[in-house]
Each structure stands twice: as C-alpha cells, then as structure tokens.
C-alpha cells in the first residue's frame, strides 16, 4: 500500500491519522497483506453447500424500532435537541 492508497482508504474509513502513524500502519498492513498470498495455494472449488454450513434457511424478522422512546437514548446522545440528534453543519 502506498501513501496515496492509505489516504483513500482513510477517507473511506472516516479516519484520519498523522503522517507518522500512516507510515507505521502502511508497513504493518503490507506485512499482513503479504501473508494473504497463501490463499493462492488453495485451488479447490468449494461445494456451495458449505458457504454457510449452519444456517441454510435464515428467516428475517420485522424490525420494529422502539428504542427511541427509551430515556437512555437521549442521555447517551452527545447532543440531543427537539427530539433529534444534533450535529455540526454539513457544509462549513
């Protein structure tokens, strides 16, 4: 990963790092990515039934959001105004 790559990944991750940390993380992550080359040793095409060996018929449920009524929702919010979460301006 070059520095340019790191910058674009940081943008996608909504993270920011100092230049020193970027350099340090690049080296560490490159080492991890190098290790991933071992995946190319696996030539076998898996039986599709093992993509999810346990849950073959997952059934979703209706989501009924109720939690906004809980007093802790307001207490946990960094800023809560007029029944909503307040954030800084989108455009400064």
């Amino acid at each position, binding site marked *: 990963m070059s520095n340019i790559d790191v910058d674009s990944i940081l943008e*996608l991750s909504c993270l*920011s790092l100092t230049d020193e940390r970027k350099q340090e*993380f690049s080296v560490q992550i490159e*080492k*991890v*990515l190098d290790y991933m080359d071992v995946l190319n040793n696996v030539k076998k095409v*898996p039986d599709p039934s*093992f993509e999810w060996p346990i849950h073959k018929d997952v059934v979703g*449920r209706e989501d009924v959001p109720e939690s906004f009524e*809980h007093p802790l929702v307001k207490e946990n919010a960094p800023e809560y105004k007029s029944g909503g979460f307040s954030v800084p301006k989108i455009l400064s």
Partner: protein
Amino acid sequence: MGVLRKIHDAIRSKALGCEELTRSVIDQIAQKNSEVNAFIDVFEARAIQMAKAQDEALANGAELPVGAGIPVGIKDNMCIDGELVTCASNILKGYRSPYTSTAVGQIMAAGFIPVGRTNMDEFAMGSSNEHSVYGPVSNPWNKSLVSGGSSGGSAAAVAAGLVPLTLGSDTGGSIRQPASFCGVVGLKPTYGRVSRYGLVAFASSLDQIGPFAQYVDDAALILESLCGFDPYDSTSENRSVEPFSANLAVDSLKGKRIGVPNQLMSQTIAPDVRESISEALKRFESLGASIDYFDFDLVDEALATYYIIAPAEVSSNLSRFDGVRYGNRNTAANSLKEMIQTTRQQGFGDEVKRRIILGTYVLSSGYYDAYYGKAQKVRAVVSETYANLFKSYDFICSPTAPTTAFEKGANLNDPMQMYLSDIATIPVNLAGLPAMSFPCGLDSSGAPIGCQLVGGWFKERELLQAAHAFERAMEFQPKYSFEGVL
C-alpha cells in the same frame, strides 16, 4: 464436582445466603482486583438487590433455579439494561445500554447474578488484553505475563478466584486462548447456539458468546442457561437445549476417535506445549480413545482468511460509531465530516484502526475479488474439510495456542506475530464449530498450557463429557480457587 453445585447446595440448605455470597464477592473484587485488572466495573446495587430477592424467595419456600445466587462476571461487550457497556473503548466511554442482551437475560432468569464488567481488548480485537482503554490485564499465574485476549478479564477473573464463572465472546479464539493462558476452562459453542442479540458486533459471522469456569461441570451448567432460540438473532438456531450437565461423567472414552493435525504439533509449537499435548493425548488413550494424526493443510490459509473476513466485517460494523447518536464526540469540530473523522480518530485505539483500515482495503473496489471474494471461498473449503474430518473423528485435538502466555509488550509492535497466536483457534470459528480449551499442564516456567478439543457441529455435550473425563483423570490444580471466598 464443580463449585456451582456446592454453592447451590449451601444456598438451598440456608448455610449460605445469596446476599452474603454477593457481598463477599464484591469485597473480594475490591481487595484483589487491582492485582490483575480483570474487573472494570461492579454492579453493586443491582447484584445486592437480586441477591436479596433470591434470599426472600427461598425464605418463602420457593424452589431456587440452578444459578440462584451464583455471581458471574460479564465481558464489557454484552448489554445490560442501564449499565455501562464500553467495549473497553474510549469511543463508548459513558454509554449505558437501554436493553439487556438475550444471553445475559437468560442467565439472569436462571438465577445467576451479574456482579460486574470484565476487561477486554478494545471491541474484542486482540490476543493479549493489552488493547484496552482501562489498561492491560495481568495473568494471575504470573503478573508480568499477558492474560490472553480478547476476553482476558473474564479468564483472569476466574483464574484469580474472584468469581466462579464469567461470560466472554469468541470471534477467532477470544475465549479459548485466554482460557489456555490463564489455566481455566473456556468453551466456544457452535455458531448459532447462543444468541448474539445485545452482543456488540465485532465480526457478526464469527462472534459467539460462551462461558469461562474453573471446572467443566460449571461450564456445562451455565451453558444450559445460555443456549436457546432467539427470534431477535436471525442466526440463532431453533433447536432444543440439551441437558449438558446431566450424565457428564462417562466411565470411558472407549470408541471415541481423536484426530490430531500434524501442522499443530510441528516445530512452530513451543516444545513444552507440544510435550504437554502429547501427554494429554496419552491420557485420552488411557481413557479408551484412539488417536490418529492427519495433515490439515489449511492452517496458514485459515489465518489469512480470518484476517480478511473479520476486518471486513469490522469495517462495516464499526461504521456506526461516529459520534452522532452515542459515545464520545469531538465537540471542537467545525463540520460534520470533520466531527466524524476526528471522533473516530480520538475514540478508537491503534488495533481497531488497523483492522478498520485493513477491512476497508480488502472490501474496496479493485481488491474485493482478490481478497474478500477469495477468502469466502477458502472459508467454505475449510468448512468442507472439517465436515469430512468429522466422518473419521469424534474430536480434533491440538494445543489451544502455540505458546504459553508471553510477557506484556512482547508482541505489541508486531501485529502479525500477535495474529499468529490464534493459529490453532481461528479455523474453528471459520467453520462455526464448538470447541473447548482446558488446562493440561504447566510449562517449565510454571505458566498454564491449554488443550483444545473441537467437536462436530452442535456436539457440545460430547465435548463436555470428554473434557470432564480428562479433567477427572488429570486433577489440574488451579492457582487460586473461588472456594476460598466461600
């Protein structure tokens, strides 16, 4: 016999009161926790209130459930209504959960009393419990060693004799590896056995809640309360809960076939660990089991697969921590984008950031097929390989970790070395299998060694029976016993 049945008998016969026991445990934590840093919060008011209610019920002639009055430590990533849950992260400091996770709710319904929060690696990412905003956990066997992670606080709390039971979560070995390092029993159930509702998500396709105990019998007892179908978790399995603790004691393991992967008994495993596992295998043989070695060629590939899939899921799951709805926020930011970026920068620790970056990278356009797509295929190959192995074997046995607990700070600057300490546990999570770690000896410096036993899908009962037979034959001596608190 584990300690739970002894406590239950003492409470039922009124030789011991629930409140008396709870207060004793809370005092014990206050006195001794600073030595290990296993607990980061104590639910004193809640615990005493629950204990008093149970004493009152007993006085009124009620038949108490099996867990009545038993104190349990809860890892800092499981929600309990009104209590702090921070995942040992600065970004969630001060956050109180508005609901209770199904797993904790179920053990409370069975009478168990959550007494406090146990320390962990931030968002369960780590193998040493050094990545915690509350500081590292010390190994009760030797305070200069790590406890293992990510459920290091849960393992150390049991090993230090502070509580008889704790709950942890296991995504790539986070129950079994610290259990091994701290010389206690740790069980990761089959994926889907225990509801993940209310467990703060790390990697949703791998996470599973399970117990720590000093004795197999105690782990079996609490597992009965933990398991069960939950409509709030779409990956929860709808199958009846087996009485894991009944008929736990089997006379022999005659007819049981144990497979041992050559790759996990190779030169890469510390000599003391290899020797101890060889002794454990002889013990299994003396109990009637047959031992057979086989080649498991996917050890390195499974590790690589895990470190693609888990960070990819992290990148998605942790995007919700943005300072908008809960947790810490950088209030000095001038725009929404700056607020989110700086909140996340200040809120997350290094290991979490590393995994978010890695996960975002492997999911990004141009790299997805080469990494994530390939990893999903290899994951299926791993599951298929296990399915074939379990046609020949009842259990697969190996060291839980390639080494015993290492010195604090030893691997902090080398993430790849840290990741390698999960090499024996990770393949199990990829396939969703149940597995246990239990103590099988000490190394030359006196640090515990853990033996890992893996079973077929939903074969927890057989696993517990085998581990129990081993435990009785081995008679491993814990360094600290909870019975000292009684």
